[in-house]
């Protein structure tokens, strides 16, 4: 697993429109830029660009479908990206819970 690939993964799923695209692709089982743009407040061209980013990160794969490409989600790769995103976030969740507990204990003891 190279650092470069992981960086692509991170930036690919970091964008809200691309996360929405992944949701749509997962729900519909796949889709084209034209079809997907009907569900989003962005142009077909913008959707095509986002799909290209997801493709480069390996999160979706394209197959020819008439004049357009049809995209599907690579579920294994998405699961890996989600796990990585979640890992660092959860580490902080644990630390913040401890910060809260410590600060509230100090506050209570100082008021007694």
């Amino acid at each position, binding site marked *: 697993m190279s650092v470069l690939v992981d960086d692509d993964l991170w930036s690919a799923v970091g964008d809200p429109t691309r996360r929405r695209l992944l949701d749509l692709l997962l729900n519909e089982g796949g889709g084209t830029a034209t079809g997907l743009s009907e569900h989003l407040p962005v142009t077909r061209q913008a959707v095509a660009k986002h799909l290209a980013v997801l493709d480069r990160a390996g999160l979706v794969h394209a197959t020819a479908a008439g004049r357009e490409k049809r995209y599907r989600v690579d579920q294994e790769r998405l699961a890996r990206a989600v796990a990585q995103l979640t890992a660092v976030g959860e580490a902080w969740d644990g630390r913040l819970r401890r910060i809260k507990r*410590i600060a509230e204990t100090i506050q209570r003891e100082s008021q007694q």
Partner: protein
Amino acid sequence: MEHGTIEREIHIDASPEVVFDVVSSPEHLREWWPDEAEYPVVPGGSGRIGFGDTWMRFTVVDAAPPRLFSFRWTHEEGETAAPGNSFLVVFELEPAGTGTLLRMTESGFRERGWDEAKTAAEYADHVTGWDFYLPRLQVYAPKAAA
């Protein structure tokens, strides 16, 4: 998210002065994160935090009690902490009722790549972190992709 930032916000039933002390002082840091912490709580103050046998560089960026504390960590020995060689953690504190709204952001992941970020998180939270969340990840990750 776009630039590789973790963002969290929590309410704490303690005054900003108390919360500031907990997030900034080496004595308290040891209670919620590393095993050891040695650094002066002043802007530019340089030191280290330790996890078992592993030490990591730690440099205070801003210390403005009771509303802001930020630091960079994981830069190499001998390097000056800067974007690209370290992660930046910012704590912002705001009075909220009788307590404090604490905002935390950690950034620098995109600049450094994910493997490194994950490794740092793993080291930094190995005592309570991974044991707690690995089983949850195993449940969560497949569900997110399903």
